[in-house]
């Protein structure tokens, strides 16, 4: 049809089960719609988004020769694309459609049925008058760059990268730390099967390193992201390692020959439980298998004065003290964020547990390192004075389920606490108490693992630990840590002396999650977890097309879930890439040349640098490929020369008139 043809409008009001119908008198709205100008047919249906609902619209379009459609239902975010498609299938341009949101904007937020019904009528009136002025539009198709960026080299990032690389896509894997592997590399065993973490993870790390389609970038961070779905331009900042990665073979001679004869600096990888030299490798199976120099502790980098014995020791001449920060630019079509989580740090945040005050209070991550055969004690667990512990208390929910720290359940700490209980008992023979509020074991084989621990004699105490103290009240408590807790199963307050206390810390968003969110232009929940597009039906997509989520950056997750989600994110990214193109929303802006005065007010305001200037004509010009349809220029232009498709003045004014004429 053409824009001049007389509008023949069909109006469809959805019940959405009882979501809308329980507040809004749908019949009345339909009756009202029938009386609006140009409306040929108006009807209702229980679920318009379902196949019979869609068919109702398509059939009406043929029968009544409709050329404009209005659907009053949920939000455009939910189903605008559905009904645009239906409009197209009915034989009209998909943009000859308008949606009225009477669920989120009406039935869910209005108590009174009368008010809800009149508000619905007003919105339908606005939509009907607006749609009469809609014009057919076409979508621009833009090719998709087949390369992918994966941010974060933990298990989720590794899995996503390998999946896409195996499908033949070029993958850039950016990791902030000197090695990939993330938290999983720090664990000794994994629940509930007690698989050795290294045995299942290090082969994957090695595959990442050797895969011809993966470019691994360690000690690197994404600095800037520009562009849009299918065509992102990413700047990656690589921090100096002071080692030429391609020359180093990981012989570790430099470490041996360092002027510091003893390792004396706290080792970050082992949370300070071990010591390292200024030149070091985080752990023996680090990937890449390359050393690094810490500028904070290296004598030469700090003071400029050192015998530089390491330089002599390295016969491959891989050490390079002149290395500087490097910026590289990548072109990618899709981005997968797998930036992971941060373990809750109880220092000064939960003083009643004495972490950082009593030497025998540990976090669970510290115990993971102490139990790890590649850890600082080669897997031997003793107290700081070298004694094998007789009794150990594991405190669940540390920093979790607490309004003063984090309100959420961290989802993994019940299971890893049980795992630690098993490992501690196995290695030391100690009696292990687990202090829990609720035992949450929802996963395949998880409840069975709990049962196994109960059979092994683990001592469960249901109650949230009130305090850990060294204040002894009986001779047996002397020299021990005393855990004070109400045993809520029995209903008494107990004091339980232990040699070691383990705080099962929860999971938090990364401290820089909010900055990362802004950099990638995605949303965050108030806590800082990255927000998925839909919690059930689009769990790995974000509100920014082409940016996907995997692993614990989206919320607390265990290894199986992180891996599953990474696979899902890779599949979504592959679907985008293999389609080959993206269709752009046609709601872009343009400049009416004869009205433009060349004042350049608009170009400075455009957040996407989409507005250029034609010096010859002295007129602004908008690059439609870059325009995101935000409307800033339209509002800025003093002469009304900047205009936007789907948001023309006449469309907006008609919509307002429609709403007001009813009110």
């Amino acid at each position, binding site marked *: 049809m053409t824009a001049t043809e007389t509008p023949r409008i069909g109006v469809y009001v959805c019940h959405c089960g009882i979501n809308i119908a329980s507040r809004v008198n749908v019949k009345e709205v339909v009756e009202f719609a029938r009386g609006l100008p140009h409306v040929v047919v108006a009807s209702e249906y229980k679920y318009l988004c379902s196949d019979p609902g869609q068919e109702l619209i398509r059939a009406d379009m043929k029968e009544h020769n409709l050329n404009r459609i209005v659907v009053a239902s949920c939000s455009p975010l939910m189903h605008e694309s559905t009904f645009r498609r239906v409009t197209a299938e009915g034989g009209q341009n998909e943009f000859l459609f308008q949606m009225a949101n009477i669920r989120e904007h009406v039935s869910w937020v209005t108590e009174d049925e009368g008010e809800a019904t009149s508000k619905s009528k007003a919105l339908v009136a606005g939509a009907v008058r607006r749609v009469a002025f809609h014009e057919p539009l076409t979508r621009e198709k833009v090719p998709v760059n087949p390369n992918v960026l994966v941010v974060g080299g933990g298990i989720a990032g590794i899995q996503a990268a390998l999946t896409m690389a195996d499908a033949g896509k070029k993958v850039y894997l950016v990791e902030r730390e000197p090695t990939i592997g993330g938290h999983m590399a720090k664990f000794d065993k994994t629940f509930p099967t007690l698989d050795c973490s290294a045995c299942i993870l290090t082969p994957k790390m090695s595959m990442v390193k050797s895969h011809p389609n993966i470019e691994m970038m360690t000690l690197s961070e994404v600095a800037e992201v520009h562009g849009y779905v299918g065509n992102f331009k990413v700047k990656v900042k690589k921090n100096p390692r002071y080692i030429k990665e391609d020359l180093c073979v990981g012989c570790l001679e430099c470490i041996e020959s360092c002027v510091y004869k003893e390792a004396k600096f706290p080792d970050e990888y082992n949370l300070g439980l071990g010591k390292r030299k200024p030149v070091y490798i985080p752990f023996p199976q680090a990937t890449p298998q390359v050393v690094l120099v810490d500028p904070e502790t290296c004598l030469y980098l700090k003071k400029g004065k050192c015998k530089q014995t390491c330089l002599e020791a390295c016969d491959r001449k891989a050490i390079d003290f002149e290395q500087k920060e490097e910026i590289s630019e990548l072109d990618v079509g899709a981005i997968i964020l797998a930036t992971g989580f941060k373990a809750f740090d109880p220092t000064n945040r939960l003083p*009643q547990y004495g972490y950082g005050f009593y030497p025998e209070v540990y976090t669970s991550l510290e115990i993971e390192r102490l139990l790890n055969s590649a850890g600082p004690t080669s897997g031997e667990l003793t107290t700081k004075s070298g004694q094998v512990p007789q009794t150990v208390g594991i405190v669940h*929910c540390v920093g979790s*389920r*607490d*309004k*003063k720290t984090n309100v959420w359940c961290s989802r993994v700490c019940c299971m890893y606490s049980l795992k630690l209980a098993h490992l501690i008992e196995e290695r030391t023979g100690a009696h292990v108490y687990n202090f829990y*509020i*609720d035992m949450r074991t929802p996963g395949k084989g998880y409840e069975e693992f709990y049962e196994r621990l109960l059979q092994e004699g683990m001592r469960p105490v*249901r*109650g*949230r*630990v*009130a*305090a850990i103290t060294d204040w002894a009240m009986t001779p047996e408590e002397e020299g021990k840590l005393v855990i*004070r*807790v*109400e*045993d*809520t199963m029995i*209903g*008494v*307050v107990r004091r339980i002396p232990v040699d070691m206390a383990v705080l099962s810390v929860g999971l938090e968003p990364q401290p820089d999650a909010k900055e990362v969110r802004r950099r990638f232009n995605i949303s965050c929940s108030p806590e800082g977890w990255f927000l998925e597009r839909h919690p059930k039906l689009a769990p790995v997509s974000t509100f920014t097309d082409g940016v996907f989520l995997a692993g614990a950056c989206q919320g607390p997750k265990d290894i199986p879930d992180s891996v599953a989600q990474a696979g899902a994110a890779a599949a979504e990214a592959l679907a985008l890439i293999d389609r080959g193109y993206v269709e752009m929303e046609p709601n872009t802006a343009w400049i009416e040349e004869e009205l433009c005065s060349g004042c350049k007010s608009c170009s400075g305001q455009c957040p996407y640098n989409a507005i250029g200037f034609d010096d010859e004509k002295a007129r602004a010009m908008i690059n439609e490929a870059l325009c995101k349809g935000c409307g800033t220029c339209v509002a800025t232009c003093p002469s009304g020369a900047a205009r936007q498709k789907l948001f023309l003045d006449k469309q907006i004014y008609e919509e307002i008139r429609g709403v007001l004429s009813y009110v």
Partner: protein
Amino acid sequence: MSERFDRQIKYESDLDLNFAHQIASFPGGERIFDCIQCGTCSGTCPLSVYMEYTPRRIIAMTRAGFKDEVVRSNTIWLCSSCYSCTVECPKEIKLTDIMYAIKRQAIRENIWPKEFKMSPMMTGEFFKLVEKNGRNSEGWLMMNLYMKSMAVGDALKIAGIGMKMFAKKRMSLKTEKIADPAELRKILDAAGSEMELIKEGAKEVVHG
């Protein structure tokens, strides 16, 4: 049946299923429904080891309608309002306020253990003074309370301490007063009959 075999089962019909809502109607009381029964309050409480029911159990029993047990328990009277539980509660429930809510309900119904009769009496005497003068006068509060609650002989026994306190100016018989008690009267009247109940409740000790 032999006395050795007490009936332990609790039938729903023995409970007061409205009790939770009664407590919830006091300010702060509604938070009992947020409790996750973690036991932090009881573990933290310096007195829970002396209580018939720990604070956590008091909340569980209140929610379940164990009204008789709750209002007759020594727990609510042992609570010294140190606020440790309130500070530590992961759900930020003001446990101390809930203890007060239950105490008020107990006073309303004239129920408390005999050995704690001083507590509700003091509440009553304190209120009478404040109602009259707008301020508390410690010396008179103590005098009134002991005269009322003790035999004359017993009261005389502790009179020596009182005298010393007067001498050291830790207590005085001067009546503290606000400028315009009549204005306060209006506020109290507007607050309703709750205050009367507290005053009246202090008259007798039912449960022993």
